């Protein structure tokens, strides 16, 4: 079998320890590059069997320049920065590092919910200013008697619900794509109308991939439906909510506050009104970060590519529609990840 060419874009100095370890049993040539132009990128991927992407290379001209690429792998969880239509057209399997940061992101959502409920950021800020008085922190409601509304019930959404189940809150889930029997397993109530969830929840948490359907899915209408005492939490992608509408909703007290890890434009402009509001707590898009996800994303991405190059349908495939364009592949039989030498 001829050597397979795996191109890694955007990581020119990385020793590729995980990639090499996962593909040890395959005959691979790794090509690393940080192209300075689309043209350069197109040339490099032309005869690639697999492309691993760090950064902004998942665009149509580069995708179309490939001639025998079987798989394009992102190292992140989200793939909204990839032209999925172009990948599908070309018959390439798109993979992400599925699940590599689910624990971390769900922890961030849970943290925001608890912090908002207990007014943690606000009380800390008060005390730093020498203010002991609790008046402007109240009311603080008993969380266990409140209602959690989770929008999106994929890997991360399920973990949010699993973790929050310790508080035994009434929990509502909205996700039109998840089988009802999965939702029943978690002992939660499935609602079929997003606005109904917004009307009933004290905390609206959203974890969905960003695509045409979910763009601005939480907007003026949803904020109007939400309780004035409710909080909004977003740890997935900024454009899932309509930021202008969110700012207006907060300024006019349509909702009480928000916990945001993500924004429509990142890094956030320091003058963004959201950063000036007492009841908005924020983080700089770090929900997925931990000392583990830093390396797990690489191992996971490499596992997907290795699986595809072995002729399998990978477990982290994110575009099942492409199946109609390509030959049948074996089901992936999970393998234990390879030990990457010298690194965790």
């Amino acid at each position, binding site marked *: 079998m001829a050597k397979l060419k795996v191109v890694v874009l955007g990581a020119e100095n990385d020793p590729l320890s995980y990639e090499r370890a996962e593909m040890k049993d395959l005959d691979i040539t790794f090509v690393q590059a940080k192209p300075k132009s689309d043209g350069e990128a197109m040339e490099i991927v032309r005869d690639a069997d697999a492309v691993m992407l760090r950064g902004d290379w998942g665009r149509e001209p580069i995708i179309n320049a490939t001639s025998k690429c079987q798989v394009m792998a992102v190292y992140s969880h989200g793939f909204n920065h990839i032209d999925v239509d172009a990948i599908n057209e070309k018959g390439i399997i798109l993979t992400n590092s599925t699940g590599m940061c689910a624990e971390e992101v769900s922890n961030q959502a849970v943290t925001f919910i608890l912090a908002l409920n207990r007014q943690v950021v606000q009380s800390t800020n008060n005390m730093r200013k020498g203010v002991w008085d609790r008046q402007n922190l109240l009311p603080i409601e008993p969380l266990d008697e409140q209602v959690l509304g989770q929008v999106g019930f994929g890997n991360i959404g399920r973990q949010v619900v699993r973790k929050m189940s310790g508080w035994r809150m009434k929990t509502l889930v909205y996700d039109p794509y998840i089988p009802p029997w999965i939702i029943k397993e978690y002992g939660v109530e499935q609602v079929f109308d997003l606005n109904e969830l917004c009307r009933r929840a004290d905390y609206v948490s959203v974890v969905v991939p960003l695509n045409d359907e979910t763009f601005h899915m939480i907007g003026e209408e949803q904020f109007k439906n939400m309780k004035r005492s409710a909080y909004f939490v977003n740890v997935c992608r900024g454009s899932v909510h309509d930021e202008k509408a969110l700012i207006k909703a907060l300024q006019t007290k349509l909702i009480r506050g928000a916990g945001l890890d993500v924004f429509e434009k990142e890094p956030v402009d320091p003058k963004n009104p959201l950063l000036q509001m007492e009841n908005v707590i924020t983080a700089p898009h770090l929900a997925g970060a931990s000392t583990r996800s830093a390396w797990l994303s690489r191992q996971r991405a490499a596992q997907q590519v290795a699986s595809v190059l072995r002729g399998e349908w990978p477990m982290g495939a994110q575009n099942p529609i492409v199946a109609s364009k390509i030959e049948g592949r074996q089901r992936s*039989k999970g393998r234990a990840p390879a030990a990457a030498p010298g690194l965790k």
Partner: protein
Amino acid sequence: MTQKKTGTPRKIRALYIGAKGGDTFDPSQIEQQSRAVKAAGGEVVRFGGSSTGELIEALKDVDVAMSQGHKVDSAVFEHMGNHGRCKGLVSFGHGFDGIDTAAAARNGVVLANTASFGTEEVSNQAMMHLLICARKFVKQDKMVRQGVWDRKGLAPMGHVSGQTLGIIGLGDIGRAVARKAQAFRLHVIGYDPYIASWDFKEYAVEQVATLEDLCRRSDYVTLHVYLNEETRHMFSSKHFDHMKPTAYLINCSRGGVVDEKALIEALQKKKIAGAGLDVFEQEPTPATNPLLKMDNVSVTNHYASYSEVAWERAQTQMGEEAVRIAMGHWPMSLINPEVKHYAPPRKAAKTWEAMKADMGLR
């Protein structure tokens, strides 16, 4: 995200194929199963024939077929899917034994079952058999009814809490068993080559690499796999050799997954301590089956998935999946995903409520 109204639905036609071997239509069942199709403005017609040829003919002018345990010959698939109007088949229940899923896939025929309708029931049955074995209930029950109060011969009995349960197959049912076993504080290990390691982690099940490892470490082994070429007799004499002599085998999946002769021999030679069985290689199992004479074996009659709620769910789901297939969506419980390589792309599977909203129904 707005809900689309696509106008009046196209009239769907579904063919209802009853159980094999004649007319066993239960009018109340077919009514429940047809509900979704009728709600979508479609009609359900009954298959009145019996031969493969008649079935092929009847499928020509329907969009989807619904069957209740009727084994469909692979030849039929050559007139469905990419070759005909009928795009798929929904089968009542979990298993799809006797249906060649690969042949269906190759012809672009979408297969669905009524996944997870009986997950609670089957997992309860498995836990029941586990506890019956652990507490030696069959023997105790018999003794007390015979007026014997003596507790001799009941030891040893496992503590359960802290013991190890090995689950083979981590689908919906295996997962439910894991959840319930964890409530009993059993340490749960699992073998399933098709489940991702990160899903094992999410279910808090320790993943083991081989069946042998699982057998060596388990105090209770339970099987929750489909019956197909790969799983037929997957559990055989060498696995009984690997198991602890104090361990029990539970099987609420399909009889053919376990080599029954090897199981009988293993029990006779005391290679394992006992078994809990809902299924047998031959059903009904004859009264002369040695398993039925052993008081360290608990037996039930392949009804693990039954409850009225479960049956009602399966029947409702059947109709809903039929509508999904007929309306160009993937079903929620697609059992031959390799069909995606052969059939043209379809719309994503959506909840019934979302489908109704799309169709402009309430």
